[in-house]
């Protein structure tokens, strides 16, 4: 039991991605069928390739979340970075093409934003 309680999530950089996808293709899959895409991607480590459309400060934090938004539908993917990879976001800017690896929390429809939101946690810039 002691082992379990001291266990921590491994570094995402060291994890093998189950899928590598283009950001807007992923948004399209969730828009087409939220449930099918969730069954496929949720709780999986995924590498997403795409262009940064927004860098949004997380409240009370000095580092930022990265967003890739489909400008036609306002649906988006948002990435929060793992503690040891937080500094990697500081070198990024809107318009950059990046490859990000992270744990997919799934997609849900936001009634506030009236768009599909796909969330990733414990992310790292994917070193090629």
């Amino acid at each position: 039991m002691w082992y379990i309680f001291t266990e921590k999530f491994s570094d995402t950089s060291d994890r093998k991605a189950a899928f590598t996808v283009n950001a807007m293709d992923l948004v399209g899959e969730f828009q087409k069928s939220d449930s099918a895409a969730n069954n496929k991607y949720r709780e999986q480590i995924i590498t997403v390739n795409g262009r940064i459309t927004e860098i949004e400060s997380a409240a009370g934090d000095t580092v930022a979340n990265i967003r890739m938004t489909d400008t036609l539908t306002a649906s988006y993917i948002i990435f929060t970075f793992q503690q040891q990879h937080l500094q990697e976001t500081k070198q990024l800017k809107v318009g950059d093409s990046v490859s990000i690896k992270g744990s997919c929390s799934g997609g849900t429809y936001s009634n506030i934003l009236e768009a599909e939101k796909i969330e990733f946690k414990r992310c790292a810039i994917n070193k090629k």
Partner: protein
Amino acid sequence: MKKTILLFAMTTLVAASFAQKKVTSSATVNFDATTKLDALPKAENKTAVASLDTKSGGVAFEVTVKSFSFANPKMQEHFNSTGWMDSDKFPSATFKGKITNLAAVKFTTDGTYTANITGDLTLHGVTKPVTTTAIVVVSGKTITTTSEFNIKVADYGVTGAAIGAGKVSTDPKITVNAEFK
């Protein structure tokens, strides 16, 4: 035709700049169910969607349950399991409410204000009323809101052996922090 497009663009721009509904997709929600017996059950979610309507006082937030990140993988698995949040079945938690003392919160004047908030929290498929306060800090065009409240998980149909054993709090503290620009 060009004039029409220009007029439309200008109207949209003016409407956007006077928009009273502010939104963010990077609000943070902290969940703290630690007890004297166990310091592990706490998590952070940095991708909550939150909105604030400075005219009507409407406030809302949406949280994807699986976006709560725990330090410990087993704890995160328990949190999402059918015995707890059952996040496959109930993927989101939502709050929709209103500031009830809107006149006391001056969104156009720099300062720190206390907003009284009442609304409905939906968690684990159960909706219950919540009354709380939020600290609202207005600084230029940035509005930061912080609210802390406790919920009784049993009210939302969340029960489990760990709660019974005193290792997970029966009334965890929820902290919501949103920055609107």
